[in-house]
């Protein structure tokens, strides 16, 4: 999945190149360290907010939708935990689902290595993007060229 046309990898030379790339897609849904979740809301409530605002759903309908997505992503057990109680992977999944619910043509994951410093980001992303393949159109992975080895194919 990672590196395919549905989830292309964009390795950039430096910060200005990264910002220039992001600027080409102002309508994209962004998954980034700089876009935190509401600290006093649970993972489910944080994601449901997007559905409540952008799709005008009731809380119950939005929560049911988010529960299905979390189930598919394999994180249903984390739904009721608040942001400070989540680990980095759970937080990443919540941010990704928020972006997916925006129904933007492109989701941009900005510097996964910064968001997921304790695990190999490529393996995690590949698994998540495959599980949620029906819930987004295209997902760009943007990171610095010096992190290329993190995304290199690995033997199983």
């Amino acid at each position: 999945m990672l590196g395919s046309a549905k989830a292309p990898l964009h390795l950039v030379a430096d910060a200005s190149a990264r910002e220039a790339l992001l600027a080409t897609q102002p309508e994209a849904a962004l998954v980034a360290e700089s876009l935190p979740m509401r600290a006093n809301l649970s993972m489910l409530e944080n994601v449901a907010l997007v559905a409540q605002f952008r799709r005008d759903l009731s809380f119950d309908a939005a929560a049911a939708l988010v529960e299905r997505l979390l189930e598919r992503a394999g994180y249903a057990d984390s739904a009721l935990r608040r942001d400070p109680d989540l680990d980095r992977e759970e937080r990443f999944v919540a941010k990704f689902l928020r972006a997916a619910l925006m129904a933007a043509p492109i989701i941009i994951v900005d510097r996964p290595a910064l968001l997921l410093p304790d695990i190999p980001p490529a393996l995690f992303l590949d698994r998540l993007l495959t599980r949620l393949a029906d819930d987004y159109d295209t997902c760009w992975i943007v990171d610095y060229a010096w992190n290329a080895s993190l995304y290199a194919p690995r033997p199983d």
Partner: protein
Amino acid sequence: MSTLSDFLVQRTVAFEARLRAWGHVARFASAAARGMVSPATYNSATREVIARQIYFTAWQILGGYTAFAAVLSLVVTQILAATARDFGLYDYALEFTFRLLVLEIVPLLTALFVALRTGAAISTEVSIMRIRNETGAMERLGIDPMKLELIPRVIGGTVSVLSLTVVGVVVSVLCAHFVVTGFRPWHAPSADLQLVVAKVFDGLSMTLLWGKALLFGLAVTVIPIAEAINAPRQVFYAPIAVLHGMVRLFFVIMLIEVGALVLRYVV
């Protein structure tokens, strides 16, 4: 000479900063008022925040607040009744109590109670939200933080202050009557109470009481939020924003109270 000019420059800069801060409060109040009457503000998420705000501001403290209002009313009425008796004015004790306790002290203390408990919490929360860029993240997700986080807090806080004031007024009227009748209200002619109530709670007094309570409700949310959203996004500014917000809030609450007194007894 240079010391004097430095002093004057400093005072001018400080005065300009204060004017700017009041300008921020006025701008946010105007935006909040527009948002409150706009149907576009209301969806399932904003209704949830309003309900949560009312729960934390009014419902959660209702028992303690009612007990506080009852004890305060009993004590103040006892003092006023004893003083009136000393001066041979006991027939007016109930009227004194209604005018001082019910129309002035209870609404003012309700506003201060909510300001201390909720105003400070709202100011801190909004400051932290801005510092962590939670509001920026919401905007990027297509969620207007004004609609989701700020206006619902103003609505919830105002409804809470009005509701608590209703509870406080009812409790203090009952307690005052209880004390003034020598703790035997069933022996007092009910016409006496009705006469005093009709005399004290006339149209002007009721307009001023609820107008004042409405302004208190708006002040305890609008001022702390306006201060928090205009503070620099640095962690060390969060306590300063709370401090400025609370001082400004205290000043406005007192101004509203004095304004209401002037309208009632001077104009």
